């Protein structure tokens, strides 16, 4: 690649990132967050006649509320799980994928303890490879494999949680909103989401708060809600917008992220709770996901949890306290919860392990007299002859 060709674009990109007027817009955005009436905004967002073309955050109480982290209990457990996969390789004669989940159970207080472990599974049966094995349709790859992994992570999280001493908080990495399944066939949604929701239901039944931690979130849900508040039109129709006095501000808001908007939070503080409008959540029932932003001591992160966690002040407080406590125990800056870090370390599949799995498959096939021949294209990339 000729890197010199990127020079000019890199310079322009840096200038864009340094845009000084963004600070002014951010100040105005925070003022708008303060001024917006949450009840009227909620009404507007829930009004079915106003079609909102973006993902928005529905305010449940205040817009600009700030809540300090309560103290952690003396004795508590944090359980975290993460996953990693070796996706199916279409250049390989054998179709399979591997999902490796890792978990960490960290007990704090009078009797500190830790348990770290992982579990790998090779999926090769047709019912694993295709969500409709009879017709061989809906192969498990891409977004479906990601969703399958999220389900495996939640399963690992539940199983690890059962071994934790209460009070316990279960943490997963990434979003609990499986928006990747939104455009999938109903059958796919039913299978993957169904299993995911069954595990959320178990947490609900056991009364154990489960939450997910999103570092460096790229969401604009709250910003988009402010744009709706700003919009004077009956319908949100940016193509035909004539409200020139707010147009510049509205356009500037597009360049701001929620994590920047909530940059005024101090360490340990969280924002108010909002509800996501992701269409897939209509299928979550009692486990509908809500979220808040939180400053953990160097970064504003997004915490998602089912509504039954967010509505229970004790659980909500425990989640906030434990997340902040985890970040204070972090050995890195900006902080990251040690439980999630260790779960990730357990789940990660190194490149050596990937090659090892390929070798194991190759040998297993060879024992049955099956010659492992990869595609010509793949071999050309590996040999790179001139």
């Amino acid at each position, binding site marked *: 690649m000729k890197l010199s060709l990127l020079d000019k674009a890199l310079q322009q990109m840096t200038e864009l990132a340094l845009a000084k007027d963004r600070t002014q817009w951010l100040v105005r955005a925070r003022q708008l967050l303060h001024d917006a009436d949450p009840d009227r905004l909620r009404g507007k967002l829930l009004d079915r006649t106003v079609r909102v073309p973006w993902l928005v955050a529905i305010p449940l109480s205040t817009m600009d509320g700030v809540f300090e982290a309560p103290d952690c209990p003396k004795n508590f457990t944090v359980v975290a799980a993460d996953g990693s996969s070796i996706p199916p390789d279409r250049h390989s004669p054998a179709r399979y994928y591997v999902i490796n989940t890792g978990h960490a159970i*960290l*007990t704090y207080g009078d009797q*500190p303890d*830790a348990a*770290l472990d992982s579990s790998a599974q090779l999926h090769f049966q047709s019912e694993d490879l295709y969500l409709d094995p009879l017709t061989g349709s809906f192969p498990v790859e891409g977004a479906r494999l990601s969703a399958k992994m999220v389900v495996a992570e939640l399963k690992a999280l539940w199983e690890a949680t059962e071994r934790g001493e209460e009070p316990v908080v279960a943490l997963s990495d990434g979003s609990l909103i499986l928006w990747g399944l939104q455009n999938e066939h109903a059958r796919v949604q039913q299978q993957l989401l169904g299993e995911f929701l069954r595990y959320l239901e178990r947490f609900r039944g056991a009364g154990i708060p489960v939450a997910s931690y999103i570092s460096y979130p790229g969401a604009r849900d709250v910003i988009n809600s402010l744009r709706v508040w700003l919009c004077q039109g009956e319908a949100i129709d940016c193509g035909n917008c004539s409200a020139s006095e707010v147009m510049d501000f509205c356009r500037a808001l597009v360049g701001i992220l929620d994590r920047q908007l909530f940059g005024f939070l101090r360490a340990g503080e969280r924002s108010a709770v909002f509800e996501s409008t992701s269409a897939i959540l209509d299928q979550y029932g009692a486990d509908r996901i809500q979220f808040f932003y939180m400053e953990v001591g160097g970064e504003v992160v997004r915490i998602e949890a089912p509504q039954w966690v967010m509505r229970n002040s004790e659980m909500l407080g425990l989640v906030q306290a434990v997340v902040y406590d985890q970040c204070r125990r972090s*050995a*890195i800056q900006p902080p990251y919860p040690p*439980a999630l870090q*260790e779960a990730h*370390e357990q789940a990660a599949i190194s490149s050596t392990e990937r090659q090892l799995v390929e070798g194991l498959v190759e040998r297993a096939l060879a024992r049955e007299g099956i010659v492992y021949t990869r595609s010509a294209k793949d071999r050309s990339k590996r040999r790179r002859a001139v």
Partner: protein
Amino acid sequence: MRIGEIIESTSTHFVAEGFELNHPPALGSFVRVCVGEGCDLYGVVCYGETGSLDPGRRAVRRSTEESFDDQIYRESPQLEHVLRTEFTSLAVGVIERGEVLQCLPSQPPPLHFSVHGCSADETTLFTENLHYFRILLRASGLVPVEQLLAANIRQVHRGRGEDKDWLQRAAREAANLLKYDYDRLMTLLYAIEPTS
């Protein structure tokens, strides 16, 4: 008592992962590996190290004004699982059916076999003879050989119940072996001199 498991094995030395974090056996102490029926390979601990289990993850500073030393381990219980203590032992001989042989073993000890700490009786039996000093003085490691031999003499002296005669014999043997290296000899003699 089992104190570690061999994770690297050669003709001259073996590396073991210790079972207790931050507590490798004392420098210069004797360890043994049971390599067959009535046959134990003896080693002298020549190096200890504690670090990250994963070479890609370095340990970083964790202490604060309020929390340091043991408190760090109580506040981050996962450290017991992501750190490890290793120790290296020089192979110095074999005891086979009660017969002591002070020389390099014919085979390196098997990988993953247990390393045991030596009892006072086992140490006493092996150290009746001091030929193994020659093996220690030819070691090539990070610990200077005179310091290694001094540490060994101190450990054995203590293990033999402060046996003065043995200490004098060990000092004479060391003086004989290091007679052409005054600086090293004096370093060793200062290091083994009883404090009382």
